Structures are given as structure tokens and as C-alpha cells.
């Protein structure tokens, strides 16, 4: 069950790009151990929201908190300290293409722990085994399929045992079976590691699986928020259309 203290809080966040408002006074909070899914059509600001949480983007107005820290106001070592609590699985995995899959997973450990080289290698190997890629340590990212890259990206995102896992479109570009596998891996991490999941998707079956709570973004605003069953009962035609969609891509 979720804690009372929010691990992530957006407080009246507004963001524009080139005069176009992408987020318009967005506020929400996410509690520890919760699966929070942000839904919405393409271009409604879902990924932009996610990027604010790890401060890849800075709000024009409003504040973003991770635990008690206002991440939107941090810089330098303090920002780094807060970012270490967060793992980020990018839509295209964003693996470093000049190093091997194993070194991608080892990278955060090399940067932020004092573990010895063989310990880091062993832990990276364990992380890869958790996502079924134990044999791919020495392969280059370019040699992997899309699904394997995503799993490797998940292994890297989990390398430092983060408290919060941000996931951008986990099923994008994947076949339904691979997409289900990624969802299962995320659920498994959530159950075993008490990770707070914040997922952006427009895949309703995936959102139902991962989300204890769903929020729908439309034209930069959250128009509805609640458990999937609540959204199912919504009178809003857009929400209804979305929730009855079986689109899985």
C-alpha cells in the first residue's frame, strides 16, 4: 500500500517551447511504491513531464520535488545526489553506443560507487541476468534488437537500485509479446524492490497493468486522475475513447 509522503510532486508546473505551451499548470503527487501512469495522445506533454522529474527540463513556472528536495532548484553535487535516487528508461533505451551492453549497466556503478572492478562487473552481470540478457555483456548495443536494447536500458536504469523508476513509452516500437515482457519486468521490480514507477504511455493495456493510478494529459493539463476503474466510468468522451482503446503500440 502507498505511503502518505509523496516521493514526487509537481507543483503548478508550466512549460513552453517556442511560444507553444506544452504543460499548463500541472500539479500531481506520487506516493512511494505506487505505479503512476501518465496517459495522453502524442504531443500532449507526457515525456516533457517525465523529464521535469529528473530535471532534464526546467519549468518556466512552478516547482518539482523529489522527496523533500526541490529538484527544479538544484544544481551540481546536490542535483547529482537526488538524481541517483531515480532511474530513467528512455523510449529508445539511449544506451551509450561506444561501450558494451555490460559496460552500459556498469557505468552508473563506476561513477557513483566505490566497488572494485570485479564487483561492478558481477553486479552488472546480475542486473543483466534479471532482464534475461546475461549472455550479452560483451555485445555492442547496435547488435541488439529493440526489445533487448530496452531490457538493457532497464538494467542500466536499475543499476543503482533507485527509489523511483521513470519509464518513457515502455512498449513503443515493440511487438506485443516483448512489450508484455517489459511490463512484467517493471512489475517485478515494483513488487520486489518497492520501486515507485512513473510511466508514460498511450498503451492502455500496459497502463492498466502498471498503474495503480492513471492520469490523463490533454493540451498540457491533467484532465482526469484516478484508478483505471474510475477512468473507465468517466463521462469525458476523450477519456472514454482512450480507455476503450486496445491500441498496443
Amino acid at each position, binding site marked *: 500500500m502507498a505511503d502518505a509522503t509523496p516521493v514526487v510532486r509537481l507543483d503548478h508546473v508550466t512549460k513552453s517551447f517556442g511560444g507553444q505551451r506544452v504543460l499548463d499548470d500541472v500539479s500531481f503527487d506520487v506516493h512511494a511504491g505506487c505505479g503512476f501512469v501518465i496517459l495522453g495522445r502524442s504531443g500532449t506533454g507526457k515525456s516533457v513531464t517525465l523529464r521535469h522529474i529528473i530535471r532534464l527540463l526546467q519549468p518556466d513556472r512552478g516547482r518539482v520535488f523529489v522527496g523533500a528536495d526541490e529538484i527544479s532548484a538544484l544544481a551540481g553535487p546536490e542535483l547529482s545526489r537526488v538524481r541517483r535516487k531515480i532511474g*530513467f528508461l528512455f523510449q529508445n533505451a*539511449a544506451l551509450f*553506443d561506444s561501450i558494451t551492453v555490460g559496460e552500459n549497466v556498469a557505468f552508473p556503478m563506476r*561513477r557513483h560507487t566505490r566497488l572494485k572492478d570485479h564487483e561492478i562487473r558481477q553486479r552488472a552481470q546480475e542486473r543483466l541476468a534479471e532482464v534475461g540478457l546475461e549472455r550479452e555483456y560483451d555485445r555492442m548495443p547496435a547488435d541488439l534488437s529493440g526489445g533487448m536494447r530496452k531490457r538493457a536500458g532497464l538494467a542500466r536504469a536499475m543499476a543503482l537500485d533507485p527509489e523511483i523508476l521513470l519509464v518513457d513509452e515502455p512498449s513503443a516500437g515493440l511487438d506485443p509479446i516483448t512489450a508484455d515482457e517489459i511490463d512484467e519486468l517493471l512489475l517485478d521490480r515494483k513488487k520486489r524492490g518497492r520501486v515507485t514507477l512513473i510511466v508514460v504511455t498511450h498503451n492502455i493495456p500496459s497502463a492498466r497493468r502498471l498503474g495503480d493510478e492513471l492520469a490523463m494529459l490533454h493540451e498540457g493539463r491533467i484532465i482526469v486522475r484516478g484508478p483505471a476503474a474510475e477512468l473507465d466510468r468517466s463521462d469525458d468522451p476523450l477519456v472514454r475513447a482512450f480507455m476503450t482503446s486496445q491500441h498496443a503500440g
Partner: protein
Amino acid sequence: MLARLGNAAVGLLGSIGDASLFALKAAREIFVPPFEIRETIRQIYELGLRSAPLIAVSGVAVGVVLSMHTRASLERFGAEAMIPAGLAIALVRETGPLTAGLLLSGRIGAGIGAELGAMRVTEQIDALEASAVDSFRYLVVTRVIACVVALPILTTIMNFTGMLGGFFAETASNGMPLALYFRRAFSMIDLSDYVPATLKTMVFGFIIATISSYLGFNTGSGTEGVGRASTKAVVFSSILIILTNVLLVRIIFFAFPQAAGG
């Protein structure tokens, strides 16, 4: 029409301002710990050592051509014995540093622009930040240090291989022995010729690394943007090297009057 020109001018000034701030930040952070020693060494290898064959081969070719031109000029005055010294002075004072700078703006500038540009469009730079790594320090500062360190070394290689090329041309022309050639080559150059001219390539290295990193870091639109960043990196760093060279030569002549030939 006028409004469009005005907008273009404002855009250009904005980009120059951004690039200058980027360069200032890079210059400042070179001296601020923590230092990315491992990555810096890797970049010195990638950008420096791996450029050595290009520089060495080019140096030999430049030396051969310079020797042929010098011979054609000095023969008229019966001063063929001065060919090694003339060639060495030309190489060490100007031809070596400038040619090395321009060649490396091509190889290194294009490489940095394309690599960082590709990292930007594939979100690898964001992934670095998300991994709690300062991407500017990790990607830019390490490359700036590597270029500033590598350029003088590569210039020295160019000077030496240029002289070697000159020797090949001379020995083919009149059978001059190696020892005599180098004795004559070094007879008229001293440290005031070598040190300022070679150290100025540290500035060239700084220009190449910062301009290329700036363009790569700010790549916007997919693979087309990566190509543009790479091309612009070569063009702008080459132009800036040539322009900065004028200023640096003035400064060197002021600080080391003997380097002006006095």
C-alpha cells in the same frame, strides 16, 4: 527583407554569444575538480594519438613540397645550402602549426561535432545526465583538455616529419646526407622560434574542441542536424583558427621580437 536580415543578424549574434559563454564555461571548468582523468586520457588517445598518422604523412608531403619551392627560390641566389634552415624556419614558425591546426580541425572537429550530435539526437547526453553525470564535464571538458594537450605534440610531429620530407627531397635532388641536412636545418632555429609558435596551437586546440562540442551539443534535428553540426564544426573552427592565428602572430612578435626575425 530588412526585417529578415535583422532577424538573421540577431540570431547570429545570439549564437555567437551562446558559443562564447560555452567556451568560457569550458575554460573555467578545466581547472575545477573533480577531474575526469580516465575519460580525458581516453580522449587524448582518440583525438591525439589516432591523429598522429594523418599528421605524420601530411608533414612529410608538406616538407617535400616546401623543399621544392624553397629550392626553386634559393637557387636563383646560389643559396642552396640555406634550404634546410629556410625550410625548418618556415615549418617551425608557421607552416607546421597552422597546417596541423587546419588538418586537425577537419579530423577532430568533424569527429567531435558528429559524435556529440549523434549522442544528442539519440538521447545519450540526456542518459548521462539521468545517470547523475555532468555531461558538460564528461563530454566537453575532457575533449577540450585532450585537444589543448594534443595539438602542440602533433604540431611537433608535423614539424619533424616536415623536415624529414624536406630531407627526402634534398637527398633525392643532391644526395645530401641526413646528419648534414639536420645540422643545417637546426642551425638557425632556437627555442624562441619553436616554443611560442607551438604553444599557440593550444589555442587552436581549444577552438576546435569548444566550437565542435558547442555545435554537437546543440544539434537539433535528427541525422540531418548531425551532418550539419559536423560540417559547421570544420568550417567554423578552420575560419577561427586562421583569424586567431593573425592575432597570435602579432602577440608572439610583440612578446618575442627575435621570433619576428630580429
